[in-house]
């Protein structure tokens, strides 16, 4: 399992989701991706995108105007 980090600071929705989508395409089932954003909307959108596409949100945290989502790539 690899853990990758994607920085999507300053990007507004839906760009963080698009960047996440594109990055996940390069990963394998079980890999983890940490996405760091500044748009609070990602707290809704990335989990929604994960639900639709069969990936799992492991953790979503926020602080200091940053929002970080750790997800695990599913098999869809």
């Amino acid at each position: 399992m690899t853990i990758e980090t994607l920085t999507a600071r300053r990007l507004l929705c839906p760009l963080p989701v698009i960047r996440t989508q594109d990055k996940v395409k390069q990963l394998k089932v079980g890999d983890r991706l940490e996405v760091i954003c500044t748009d609070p909307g990602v707290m809704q959108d990335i989990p929604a995108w994960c639900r639709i596409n069969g990936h799992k949100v492991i953790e979503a945290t926020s602080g200091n105007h940053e929002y970080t989502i750790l997800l695990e790539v599913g098999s869809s």
Partner: protein
Amino acid sequence: MSKQRKAIALISGGLDSMLAAKTIMEQGVHVEGINFFTGFCVEGHTHAIREKDKAKPKRNNSLWVAEQLGMKLHIVDVIEEYKNVLINPKHGYGAHMNPCLDCKIFMVNKAKQWIVENDFDFIITGEVIGQRPMSQRKATMPIVAKESGADDLLLRPLCAKNLPATLPEREGWVDREKLHDITGRSRKPQIAMAEQFGIDDYSQPAGGCCFLTDKSYSAKLVDLWKSQGHKEYQLDDVMLLKVGRHIRPQPNFKLIVAREEGEGRFLQGYKNEFISMISVSHRGPLVLIDGTPSAEDLYLAAQITARFGQGREAEQVDVDVTMLDGSERTLQVKPIREEDMPKAWYV
């Protein structure tokens, strides 16, 4: 057993495309959604930059629609390719800077490419004849189908019965009888259909699906093009048009004034790319200066910056200026009076 057909539905996040996709899913077709991000899409999140809009839902409507319908959604970044559509629309602009007909043709063409690459059978849109004055007229329907190259692989389930049968109908992949014949601007048939499907929470964006249909946004875009002398743009340029108050006292520079904290934080991210100003003797907003201001212009910009802070009535306000090379200095200015700021300065 006959092969299960697959369709891609253009999903804008609004009700019509949702109903179109649902209509076809109900017929046993495998439907996935596709949404194109042009850089001008209206999203709850863009508003969410502003603190005062915090109560507004911040969901992405396309993702929400996909989840409600239980289908996958592919969000495609078309920012670069879309530039040509906006800069040179063959069919012209709508009421504002919206090149709707060219935009539709472009998106359906992208969807056509997508179905070829992904082995899907046809394309669905939520278009309704007569719904929109420019892009959704009976005369424009064949133009979109033809110029996009989708031809009769493009099915509009909401008004299909008013149009010639497409390949999916002729081949029996979908039952034409179960498609619809909606026309005109009334939303009643869609609302009734939503009720029938048990869909009660949907987005009906007043200004359509993108900023280009917005009068004040379009004015800012035209101002940007005029000031730079050409129509090229970067994503950051068009993002910044969504934020703050834009004031152009001279053709060679404009100010972007944060209207509140959320916008201030957003503009903060651009501080290294612009000259910036902030009042330090009194509370005031962050201001970015776009263009090539002279020393005199900077003084005027500082006076305007002071006007938007709490020192607006003060005799003197200290304004910190950070130049592009990072150097800083403080200008002591008297805030400009409201009556000395012509309305024409506000873009």
